[in-house]
C-alpha cells in the first residue's frame, strides 16, 4: 500500500473503502450539504477543500456519525453505515481527529492515548508506536495535555486516533491555529501513517497544503461539489474558481465530470 504515498496517482481500481452517495445534511433549517458524493479507495489521501461554511466539517462529522443525514447514504467496506452510532463506526475502523483537537483536558497525555486504545481494532498501531512517531511524547506522557502547545495537542489527537487502528482516518482541519512550520512537521508524518495501511480523508482550508499531500481532491462550495479531480489535473485557476465560486466552474478532467454550483443557494453560516 506504500505506493500510494507517491502523490498524483489515484488508485481507483478495486472496490472503494468508503462511499458517500448524495448526502444531504441539515442543521435545523439550514441546508449544510446538498447532495455530496465521494468515493475513497484504499491507500488514498482524499482531500476536501473549501472556504469557511462550505460544509467540509459537516461532511466529515456526518461520515464519523456525529450528524444524522436527512438524505443519502454512507457505505463503508461494502456495508451501509448511515444509521450506525459514532462509537460503533470508530470500532469498525472509521476514526476521526476532530476539529480543534478535542483532547480530554483532565487526562494526561498517556491516558488520552489509552482511552483511544481501549476499543481499538487489532492492528499495527500501539502506544509505543505512537511514541516512536512522536519521540517527544515519551518524556511528557504524564503531563496534562491542556498545558501543551497547539501543535503538540494536534499530534496527541492524531496519536489517539491512530492507536484505535483505523482503516479510514478522518482529519478535520489539521491546520487550524497552527504555525506553518509546525503544520509541515505534522503533515510530514503522513507517509508513515499511509505506509501502515491507513487510508486518509482530510478536510483542509489550506489549499496549497492539501494539493501537496492529496491523491484526490474535491472542492466544496455552499454544500455542493464544485470541483473534483487529481491535483495534477486541475489548474490553480480552476481551484480558485471552485473555491470562491467565481464565474461558472469548469471541468477538471474528462473522467470526473464536475457539477456546476448555482450561485444562488445562500444562507451559509
Amino acid at each position, binding site marked *: 500500500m506504500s505506493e500510494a504515498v507517491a502523490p498524483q496517482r489515484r488508485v481507483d481500481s478495486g472496490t472503494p473503502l468508503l462511499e458517500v452517495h448524495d448526502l444531504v445534511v441539515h442543521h435545523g433549517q439550514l441546508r449544510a450539504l446538498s447532495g455530496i458524493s465521494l468515493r475513497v479507495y484504499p491507500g488514498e489521501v482524499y482531500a476536501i477543500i473549501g472556504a469557511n461554511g462550505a460544509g467540509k466539517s459537516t461532511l466529515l462529522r456526518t461520515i464519523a456519525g456525529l450528524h444524522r443525514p436527512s438524505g443519502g447514504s454512507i457505505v463503508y467496506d461494502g456495508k451501509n453505515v448511515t444509521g450506525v452510532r459514532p*462509537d460503533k463506526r470508530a470500532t469498525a475502523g472509521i*476514526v476521526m481527529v476532530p476539529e480543534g483537537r*478535542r483532547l480530554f483536558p483532565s487526562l494526561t497525555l498517556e*491516558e488520552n492515548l489509552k*482511552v483511544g486504545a*481501549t476499543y*481499538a481494532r487489532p492492528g499495527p498501531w500501539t502506544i509505543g508506536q505512537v511514541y516512536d512517531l512522536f519521540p517527544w511524547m515519551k518524556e511528557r506522557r504524564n503531563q496534562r495535555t491542556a498545558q501543551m502547545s497547539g501543535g503538540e495537542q494536534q499530534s496527541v489527537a492524531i496519536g*489517539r486516533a491512530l492507536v484505535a487502528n483505523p482503516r479510514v482516518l478522518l482529519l478535520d482541519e489539521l491546520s487550524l491555529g497552527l504555525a506553518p512550520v509546525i503544520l509541515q512537521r505534522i503533515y510530514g508524518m503522513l507517509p508513515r501513517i499511509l505506509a501502515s495501511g491507513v487510508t486518509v480523508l482530510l478536510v483542509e482550508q489550506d489549499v496549497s497544503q492539501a494539493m501537496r499531500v492529496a491523491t484526490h481532491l474535491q472542492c466544496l462550495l455552499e454544500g455542493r461539489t464544485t470541483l473534483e479531480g487529481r491535483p495534477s489535473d486541475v489548474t490553480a485557476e480552476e481551484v480558485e474558481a471552485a473555491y470562491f465560486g467565481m464565474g461558472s466552474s469548469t471541468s477538471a478532467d474528462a473522467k470526473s465530470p464536475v457539477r456546476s454550483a448555482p450561485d444562488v443557494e445562500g444562507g451559509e453560516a
Partner: protein
Amino acid sequence: MAWVNAVIQGILTGGLYALFACGLSLMFGVMKVVNLAHGDLATVAGYVGVGVIAATHVPFLWSVPIVVAIMAVLGYVLQRSLLQAAISRGELITLIVTFGLSIVIENGLLQFFTANTRGIGTGSSLISASFSIGSQITIAWLDVVIFGLAIVVLLGLQYFLSGSKYGRLIRAVADDREAAQLSGADYRHVFGIAAGVAFATVALAGNSYGMTTVIDAT
C-alpha cells in the same frame, strides 16, 4: 472540653456525610445530573438491607455486599433508562425527573412499609459500644467504623477513577462526551457504570445511616 467533644463528634459525623456526598458528586461530575432523589435512594438501600436480612437471615455483614450489588445494578438500569432519557432532553429536565423520582420513591415506600421507623440490626454489640477519652468525651465505636468506611470508600473511588480502565473512560466522558464516542466509547454505557458506582456508595451510606439511627419512609 465540650468543644473538643463537638469537634470530634462533628468529624465522625462528617464521615457519614462524605459517604452520602460522594455518590451525588460523582453523578454530578460525570453526567451533570443533580440527583434530587439521592437521599431517597439511600433510604431505599436501607429498606433493601432490612429486606435482605429478613428474607435470607444472613448476618448483617454478609447483607452489605448483597445490598451494594443490588443497588449498583439498579443504578445502571435506572441510568440507562430513565436518567438517560432525561439527559437527552436537556440538563434541566434531569432536575424535574429526579424530583419526580424522589416523590415516587417516598410515597412508594410509605405505601409498602408504612410510616413506622425501622433500624438495621447489626446483631452485634458494636451498635451501642463506645469508649471514653477522659471523663467528658465518649466516642461510639459505630461512628469510628463508619468514618473508617468513608475513608476506605473515598480512597477506593480515587483509585478506581485514576487507575482503572473504566475510571479513565468515566473521566474522559466527563471531559468530552463526543470525543470519547470518536474513540469508540459508548458514553451511555460509561454513564451507566458511573451511576452503578454512585449507587453502590449510596447503598453504603443508607445502611450506615440505618445503623446509627433509624430509617423511615418520609
